C-alpha cells in the first residue's frame, strides 16, 4: 500500500464529493477509555496512512436547530479552535437509514461544505437556534477513504467561549470510523468492517444505537 498515493486518492475523492449530490456517510462508533487510548493510537499509527504527520485537532462544534410546526432541521457548524481557523464547516447529517437491518454499518445522508466565518450569524438570521455545543479534541487518521477519529469531548462551563475552561464529558474517548461516499457504494461497509476487526479487542465499533 502506497501511503502517498492513497493520500492523493483520498483527496481526489473528497474533492469530487462536492459536485455529486447524493452523498452518504457510512459510520461505526465506539469508545476507548483514556487509559487505553495510547495503545489504540499506536495501533492506528501502524494501520493508517498518515503516520508521519499525526493529525490532531481541537474543534468547536455548534449544533443548530430550526423548529417548524411539526418538523425540525438540524445543521452542525464546526471550526478548528487550535490551530484557530477562519473558516467553518457546515454539515447536514440525516437520520440513520434503518431500511436495511442487515447492514453492518450505519448509513445516513451527509452533506458538508466549507463556509466563511460568519456561519453562526448566518444560521441565526435564517431562523436557526443554537441547540448545544461542545469541543472535540483528538486525533484523526486516514486509511484510504476511511477516516478514523479518536476524540475527547468537552462541554462548556461558559456558553460560547471555546477558550474558557472546559469540563470533561467522560473518562472515555469517542472513536468514529467513517467514510463519505456516493450512495450505493457497496464495498464500503465491508472495508470498514475489516478495519474495525483490526481494532478489536481494544475497541468494538458498532452501528449507532440512539
Amino acid at each position, binding site marked *: 500500500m502506497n501511503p502517498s498515493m492513497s493520500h492523493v486518492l483520498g483527496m481526489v475523492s473528497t474533492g469530487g464529493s462536492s459536485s455529486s449530490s447524493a452523498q452518504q456517510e457510512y459510520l461505526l462508533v465506539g469508545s476507548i477509555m483514556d487509559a487505553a487510548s495510547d*495503545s489504540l493510537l499506536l495501533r492506528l499509527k501502524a494501520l493508517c496512512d498518515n*503516520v508521519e504527520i499525526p493529525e490532531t485537532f481541537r474543534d468547536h462544534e455548534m449544533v443548530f436547530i430550526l423548529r417548524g410546526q411539526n418538523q425540525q432541521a438540524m445543521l452542525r457548524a464546526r471550526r478548528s479552535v487550535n490551530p484557530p481557523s477562519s473558516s467553518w464547516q457546515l454539515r447536514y447529517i440525516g437520520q440513520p437509514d434503518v431500511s436495511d437491518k442487515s447492514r453492518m454499518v450505519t448509513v445516513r445522508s451527509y452533506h458538508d461544505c466549507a463556509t466563511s466565518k460568519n456561519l453562526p450569524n448566518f444560521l441565526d438570521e435564517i431562523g436557526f437556534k443554537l441547540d448545544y455545543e461542545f469541543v472535540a479534541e483528538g486525533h484523526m487518521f486516514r486509511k484510504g477513504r476511511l477516516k478514523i477519529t479518536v476524540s475527547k469531548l468537552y462541554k462548556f462551563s461558559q456558553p460560547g467561549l471555546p477558550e474558557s475552561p472546559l469540563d470533561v464529558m467522560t473518562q472515555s474517548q469517542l472513536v468514529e470510523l467513517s467514510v463519505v461516499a456516493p450512495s450505493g457504494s457497496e464495498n464500503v461497509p465491508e472495508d470498514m468492517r475489516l478495519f474495525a476487526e483490526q481494532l478489536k479487542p481494544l475497541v468494538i465499533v458498532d452501528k449507532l444505537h440512539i
Partner: protein
Amino acid sequence: MATALENANLLSRAILTTQKLRISVSKTFNHMKDGIKVSQDEHGAPKSFASQLQEDLFLINESFIELEKLTMAVRRQREAETIGNTGALSMDPVTDKTPLYPKALETYKWATRLREHSAHSQAFLNNSSIKRSSGSGGSPAKRRKTAPTNLNISTQAVDNLVMNVNRQFHDVKITKIQLNPTVLQVYVSRTLQAIIVLRGLLIERVLIRAHHENTLNDDGTLDLWTASKYEVFQKITEHATAASLRYYLPTMQDLSFRSFMHWLNSFSKLFSTPCRLCGKYIKDNLPPTWRCFRTVEPYHECCRP
C-alpha cells in the same frame, strides 16, 4: 533498585563468561581440526595432543561452571520480583516509553516512500537524459566569491536606515524579511509593495507588486523573481529599476536609498492622482506610472516631459 543493579552486574559478567566460553570452545575445535602444532609449554617441553585437549576441556569446563553459577544467581534475583509484570513488558508496547516503536514505523513508511519516489524520478531522469553542464553547479560558488567586500555594511546600519525611513514617510512601511543578502519589503500605502534587494545600502534589484500579491512561493521560500501579474506594476517595476540607477550614488549610499524611497513614496496615491500633463487618470489602460525624478510629479509614460 539495588537488586536491579546487582542483577545487571551479574548479567554483564555472565555475558563476559559466555564470551570466554565461546572462545575456549572454538579454540578447542581449532586445535582438534588443525592438529597441534609443535608448541612448547612454559618449561619448553613439547606438549602432547592429549594434554593440550585436556587443558582446553578444563578451561571450557571452568567457564561453564562459572556461567552456570551466574545464571543461578541471576534467576534467584528475578524471582524476587514479580515475573508477571516483566512478562507484560514485552507484550504491551505502551509501557515501552522509548519512542522506538513509532520511530520505526515512521522510518518504515519513509523508506517505502523514498523508494517509490526514487523509482519515479529515476524513470523520469532516464527519459530525459540530458547531461547537465558541470559549470552550472559551480557558478553560485563563483558568484559568492565575487561578492563585494568593500560594500559590507553592518546590519546595524541597515536597521537604522530602515527605522529612519519608516519614521520619515508615513505611508511607507519597511520590514526586513531576509538578512543575507538583505531583502526589504516595502509597503507603500495600500497601493503596492516593493521587494528590494540591497547590496550594502545600494539597491541591487527592485520588484514592484500589488499590495495583495504574494511575497512567498508556495513552499514558503522568498519569491524574488516572479514579476507582478498586473501591467501597472510591471511598468512601475521598470521605472523603479530605472530610478534605482538614477539615484545610484556609491559614495553616498545613505542618500541614494533615501532619495529612492522618496521617489517610491510618491506612488502612495497611484490610482487617485491624475497625470500632471493630460489631467487624465488613464492612458493605455494604465494610470500615471512615471514619476519625475526631481519633483516626483505623476505622468503617464508618454506624457513625461
